[in-house]
């Protein structure tokens, strides 16, 4: 799968999710089962740099979500 198609797949999958807005890295592996995990990790981090996704960190664990999704931004006075 080329990079643009993979990004589209990730965004579409995240947009369909109801209830949850933050996901573990392993959830992204499942979205692109044919890709190597390391490649998915690199792509997801690239999508953060491109501001398509954003990190959410508790300090001990890191999750990823669509930028601005969920109530986090409002709760943190970021919007």
């Amino acid at each position, binding site marked *: 799968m080329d990079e643009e198609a993979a990004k589209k797949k990730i965004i579409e999958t995240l947009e369909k999710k109801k209830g949850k807005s933050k996901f573990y890295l392993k959830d992204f592996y499942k979205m692109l089962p044919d890709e190597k995990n390391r490649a998915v*990790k690199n792509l997801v*981090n690239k999508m953060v740099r491109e501001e398509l996704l954003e990190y959410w*960190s508790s300090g*001990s664990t*890191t999750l990823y979500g669509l930028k601005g999704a969920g109530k986090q*931004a409002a*709760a*943190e*006075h970021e919007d």
Partner: protein
Amino acid sequence: MEFKHKTPLIDQLETGPWPSFVSDIKREAESRRKNERNIDYQIPADVCEDLLGVLELSYEHGRTHWKHGGIVGVFGYGGGVIGRYCDQPEMFPGVAHFHTLRVNQPSSKFYTTKYLEQLCDLWERRGSGITNMHGSTGDIVFLGTTTPQLEEIFYELTHNIGQDLGGSGSNLRTPSCCLSGARCEFACYNTQAICHALTNEYQDELHRPAFPYKFKFKFDGCPNCCVASIARSDMSFIGTWRDDIRIDQEAVKAYVGGELKPNAGAHAGRDWGPFDIQKEVIDLCPTGCMRWDGSKLEINNKECTRCMHCINVMPRALRVGQDTGCSILVGAKAPILDGAQMSSLLVPFIKVEEPYDEIKELIESIWDWWMEEGKNRERLGELIKRQGFQKLLDVTGLKAIPQMVKEPRSNPYIFWKEEEVPGGWKRDINEFRKYHQR
């Protein structure tokens, strides 16, 4: 000085004989109020006063008023910043945002005064002025700033002080090492060099989350384990030697005769009586591999487990061997999914020499396995327990050997049980919201 909030409960913490963090925060609050150096504070000048206030309220209510975790960070980094917010921002506006920054400490925590001044000046101006030197992982911890300051602090750290952020979240955490040969004759390898080299080599893993959970390296120059790598790191590198402990028989006699003080005089504050080598060294050897006949000390080195006791007691007489390197152990952790674990021995001996290719190969083979098989929030030690040490040997290509034995485990942590907490884990959300805003 009269502060913004009355704090009778936390004031009690100042009455003990020990140093008090409350006094420290008050001192900083007073300094910010007076601002004798005319600092152009970029976050509220009364941040420390509000910090004292929210802490007092937490003591009053018996529960926290902090919310931790968040989306805050610096651009392109998935670690180094831990979001923290107060759930009573109207009452304590100075700490409405109170984010933590982890700053990667220099190897062995050696600083120049100028460097420390630069850090402190930056943090006075753009943060609360409160630091934690150092956090458990070893980082320099900056406690409390607002979201708009994060990029500014990062810019100044990297451009003016030549300093990077440390690790947090599901990243490689800031590698940490002991004082090594800089201050210690027991060091069996240069912990500072490898700590620095691997920090640079694995920058991507340090700053961009790649793992199921945290991953820690720690480097101890000898089995005294001054950075406690065996208890606190997923991969512990502990200095050791393959040949014999070097013995200076004349110095042994000097200890026995009282000319040299045992433990380099470390316990000299009390009269322990004359040094008794049989009682204090020979009988305490865990493997019973030492003998003293009144004139000569003998060690059966094959039986030595590198406990370091005899060397620590008689450092002028006994020295580590000359064929030195490290042992690599894996899987230590504090309890989260599973109980606390100490590291288990994986590589009994390896030379520690630049460019560390063999060590990097081992690290990466372990990471590949853990990234593939590790569950969310599962540490390496838990994966080893779940899939077996044998599986680890498969993925690293190492052969099983007798040295790969487990130590007896014990759990040093205390966790509350539901029945021990009034009201259990369930709470009335409406009652909670009366005191804690969303």
